[in-house]
């Protein structure tokens, strides 16, 4: 996740890699989201220019791309902090201490779900089941997975991310 990267370059690479076909919209948006951290309006405009090919009968509107980007939970059309904390809110984690942990995470970061701190360091999100229920409660920071998390471990975990 690196908002300093060149957005135009990211969009171009993504379209080239996955091909300018309708069934590639989701892979393209996923790649932009991963590389840039989120999908800004400008990226949607640029992607639309590359994907819209009337001569090939592929007609694409910005609204269509925005519709896809805003539908899926793993795609974000809103800016995020340098690190994204994803907390599993599913039942197996919930009954294995996730309920207490969720309160502790919110308290530790001073954030509610969906919020980003003023220093732009963390964005807190909830995600649905990651399928790691054997080691719940589970929390993911950027791409790092933490299992069997307890409230006491939180300060140490968050300290790893600047």
């Amino acid at each position, binding site marked *: 996740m690196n908002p300093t990267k060149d957005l135009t370059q990211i969009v171009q690479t993504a379209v080239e890699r996955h091909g300018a076909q*309708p*069934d590639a919209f989701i892979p393209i948006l996923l790649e932009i989201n991963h590389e840039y951290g989120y999908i800004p309006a400008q990226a949607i405009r640029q992607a639309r220019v590359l994907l819209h090919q009337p001569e090939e009968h592929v007609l694409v509107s910005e609204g269509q791309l925005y519709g896809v980007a805003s*539908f*899926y939970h793993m*795609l974000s059309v809103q800016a995020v902090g340098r690190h994204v904390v994803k907390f599993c809110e599913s039942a*197996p984690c919930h009954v294995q201490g996730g309920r207490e942990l969720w309160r502790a995470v919110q308290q530790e970061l001073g954030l509610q779900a969906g919020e980003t701190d003023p220093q732009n360091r963390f964005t807190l999100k909830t995600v*649905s089941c990651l399928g790691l229920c*054997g080691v719940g409660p589970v929390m993911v920071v950027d791409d790092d997975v933490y299992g069997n998390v307890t409230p006491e471990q939180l300060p140490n975990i968050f300290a790893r991310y600047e």
Partner: protein
Amino acid sequence: MAFYRSHVLVSVDPECLKRGAHEVLDALNDELLAQGLLDEVQVLETSRIGDPHRFGPDLLVYPENVHYANLDVDDIPYLVEEHFLKGRTVEKFRAQEKAISDEELGAPKPKEVRIVLRNCGKIDPHNIEDYIAEDGYSALARALTELSPEQVIDEVAKSGLRGRGGAGFPAARKWQLCRQVADNPKYLTCNADEGDPGAFMNRRVLESDPHSVLEGMVIAAYAIGASMGYVYCRAEYPIAVQNLNIAIAQAREFGFLGQNIFGTGFSFDLEVRMGAGAFVCGEETALIASIEGKRGEPRPRPPFPAQKGVWGKPTNNNNVETYAVVPQILLHGAEWYASMGTEKSKGTKTFAVAGDVVNTGLIEVPFGITLREVVYDVGGGIKDGKGFKAIQTGGPMGGGLTAEHLDLPLDYEALTAAGSMMGSGGLIVMDEETCMVDMARFFMEFTQEESCGKCTPCRVGTRRLLELLEKICDGQGVPQDLNTLDDLCHEITQNSLCGLGQGAPNPVISMMKHFRAEFEAHIYEKRCPAKVCRALIHYRIEEQTCTGCTVCARNCPVEAISGARRQAHVIDLEKCIRCGICAQVCNFNAVAVESGK
């Protein structure tokens, strides 16, 4: 496949990677090369071996079955020289714990029968030759060279295989319906959008044995006459996506996918399509929309995908597990498969057991086993010696079952009759300290969040249900709410467009049916019997037990606790925010949780 005298499995679990597993792996390969042992010792990557926080980076050496833990790059030359050159086990690097455990998938328990999970943890998912050595792709060879498509469908029909995605529709009949449609090309999709919270058996199969799914898909494609297929895998499973792509590339290279498979003139190819985090995409029409790059919203059926699916063409959609079973049926025969299970539910089913049970993780058992056997014999009973309260089967669209249902045989019909369903196979076990109103609220929070918003009964109805349950948990419930809940559940079930909406009220319906007294306690007595709902509980320090150590007072975030040193402390209930920190920090168990007046 080349033969090696030793196999080394290095854990590349995320935690081990963070602790330097890749560096250890590189050092190991370098050292084996330097010692001229690369032809004798094979190094493989695997998922976690033991607890990575305790043991990582770690590795296993076969056939000796020695577990070396907490390895550092500098340890490798000595390890290679001692173990592989001189044949001596290096005791100082050995993991302290003798039992080697895969936290998700332990050694099979007495009542387990592993068919779908048979290769998981045993073979290298990155190497097609490992799969071939376990009879891989021989079922495909048999199908293509000895059987007609009709005979394949016939064999699967005789086995009694039913769709493992949850609905339990007979697989062979589905294939037949798609085969009969006179329109081409035909498509095949594999539903690997395993979104049910607590269900992760498909992930494990895709990560550990992806070829079994691919082989099943090619056989199904042959039976139906499909030329192109998609595996729709959720993006939350990055390793599954990666292993699938590796497996597809290898299968193409070996001629099991692509043009003219086995020289029979039959051609079929596969691609992986990734989801982007939408639970509703597990519904087949939404899944098809998502494959086409659209918002994953369901549409009314008919037309069924067998007539109009991907790109408007006939499409057959099955679950990961359904496809993974097919090669085994063709290899061992329909009679063998049909000999397991109950009258109408044949074979085995994988379940992901989660929650308050001793052994969480994956199991595979024949249909017909009772819930009691699953919870106590296979699952090892309830954690910390507590009592069993309920079990949620079928995921968030399923229902909660009680101790009364423990002797229920696990099959499609019995679960449906009890007001729950098979679903994809998530089992969430809840102990006596679980509040069922809170659980109902919790499941509604999930379905409300995941409702795609296309139809009103689901979009608005789930929101209203959630609001009512929140109100009851907050102690604001009134008697009329119970009737309103009943009515809403009925309306949503009757009028929603897809299975997600129709099933959304199930947890509420079943919990109100089996635990009505708990709902009533919340409403009439403003009491939470399980002492979970924050608005209905309070904390009290027991005078006789409190030693006046002041730990609770110092830890209280709102300074609600007062009392002199060595004197019993008191909580000011007006200030208290019921965070429970005092109860957690008290060393003398002097803080009691109470509910009701």
